[in-house]
């Protein structure tokens, strides 16, 4: 059994989901890579921003 940290779980989730989104939502390999990277950045970036928002609200 593995126990990833919350952030590691977010990164793994974002990586796999972004690969599938990139392949399925765009038509050319170059656009697939760009869209996959865009989705990955949005997944991880939004998780970091929301984490800081929750941290500041909880103070």
């Amino acid at each position, binding site marked *: 059994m593995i*126990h990833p940290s919350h952030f590691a*779980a977010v990164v793994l989730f974002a990586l*796999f989901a972004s690969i*599938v989104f990139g392949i399925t939502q765009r038509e050319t390999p170059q656009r697939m890579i760009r869209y996959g990277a865009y989705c990955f950045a949005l997944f991880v970036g939004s998780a970091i921003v929301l984490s800081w928002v929750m941290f500041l609200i909880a103070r």
Partner: protein
Amino acid sequence: MATASTRNSAPSNAQRGFVYLPLIAGWLVPGLGHFLLQKWIRGALLTISIVGMFALGLAMKGKIYGGAQDILDMLGMAGDLGNGLLFLAARAFGWGAEHIQVTTADYGTKFIVVAGLLNVIAAVDAHNLRTGRKPL
């Protein structure tokens, strides 16, 4: 107005045989729909992503939904069913946890459900490639 090139592009993807084969094969085995269309790299990446996500979910002691007692269980099971043969194997061999007891098991349960939903997207993509709705 369609030009000669656009008129010819859709039928060029169409091949003989059962048109729903990539859709069904892609649902049963992640990536197989793309392999049937000779999209080897895309198929391999989809297989690694979906099977990897499913395996990580199991490794985190995620729950495999087996019955539907309430609406959330029904939705979870609908997501799990998207994994195709992986879901059936998990049910047959008793993989996954019966109950969620630790935080990482909750993550794992979501990983398994989302792997199933991503597999449905991948299978539909293979169908679109097969029918010519998406260019090969």
